[in-house]
């Protein structure tokens, strides 16, 4: 009975992942991260993603400030960073918005930058919520699976 629950959660997790892939929110680099997770490093994905969240929030705050100051070149540098780390975890949509955003900074296009920042914040929030959801399901599954096989 409990095993059945674990299987349901596994199905939920896969469904969510499939959805995120289909939507282009995540790409195969995320799968690559999952492949790097094993008994030696059982929380690898969530560890890296949490570092990513922490860094990204700082970057977003800085970007907001820099945009107010019209510091386009500095924004470009921040965006390079954001782009790099987003692509490293497989956050495809966020990466793409960063690319568009950086193009706007290259042209010192203020209106374009404002729009891009809004979109970036939106995509980032969405990604964060979905990944939290994913990790929650994974945690539940680990719990249920743990009960099924008592130590």
């Amino acid at each position, binding site marked *: 009975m409990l095993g059945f629950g674990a299987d349901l959660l596994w199905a939920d997790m896969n469904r969510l992942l499939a959805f995120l892939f289909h939507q282009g929110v995540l790409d195969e*680099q995320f799968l*690559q991260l999952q*492949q790097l997770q094993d008994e030696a490093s059982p929380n690898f994905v969530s560890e*890296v993603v949490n570092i990513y969240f922490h860094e990204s929030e700082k970057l977003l705050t800085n970007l907001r400030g820099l945009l107010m100051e019209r510091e386009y070149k500095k924004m470009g540098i921040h965006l390079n960073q954001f782009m790099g780390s987003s692509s490293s975890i497989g956050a495809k949509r966020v990466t793409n918005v960063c690319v568009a955003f950086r193009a706007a900074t290259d042209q010192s296009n203020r209106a374009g930058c404002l729009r891009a920042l809004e979109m970036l914040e939106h995509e980032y929030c969405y990604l964060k919520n979905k990944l939290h959801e994913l990790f929650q399901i994974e945690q539940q599954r680990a719990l249920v699976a743990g009960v099924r096989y008592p130590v």
Partner: protein
Amino acid sequence: MDTDSFVSFDHVSPEDSHEVHVLAVDDSLVDRKVIERLLKISACKVTAVDSGIRALQFLGLDEQRRTSESDGFVPDLKVDLIITDYCMPEMTGYELLKKIKESTMFREIPVVIMSSENILPRIDRCLEEGAEDFIVKPVKLSDVKRLKGYMTPKEVIKMRSQEDRRSDGYVNGGDGGVLEINNKRKLEEQDTSDVSLSPPSTSTLSSSPSVSSPSPSSSPTSSASVLASPIRRLKMTSTD
């Protein structure tokens, strides 16, 4: 593998003589974590630092500690490969590459550059400066597997360079710059211009840092010797 005859470093303990040690340089913590895990899962020992300056400090090449160069003392660190991000504040991966290739102590160590941007002039410049390979981020397991091909411990490299020196007379960079080249992206770029000589020309490039411009018409001897090396032949056929 018999390590006794080819020990090029004083301090190689038996247990780590077979494990490659990679120095990874990246200012992004996320990327450092990922590259570290990719390397560890590929059975490599990893030292990850966040800047070119720290990398030089680790190697003992920084301004403060000029020990390694002068008295020939080789610290226990024994780095087999350096993999570095290109875009870093203060010192770019390219600048780090130059510093390493300028050092007599460390210029034999293969250096691989990573970048999130696939900019051909940038790739060319790095390869001309002696970079072994150029990886476009995000880095995957398949990239690391490819690197392992020329990330062999120093003993094996010494052995191979002696083999190659016997079979040809072409220019290596100094006393051991003969390393497999597997510049997949470079090969794709050069395939149109060079017919059969593209791998040798890039290898000539990478092994002798003094070569400043690529010359597609490399000497026939270099291609013969390249083909003579079984490892290179495998690499040439395995690039896709």
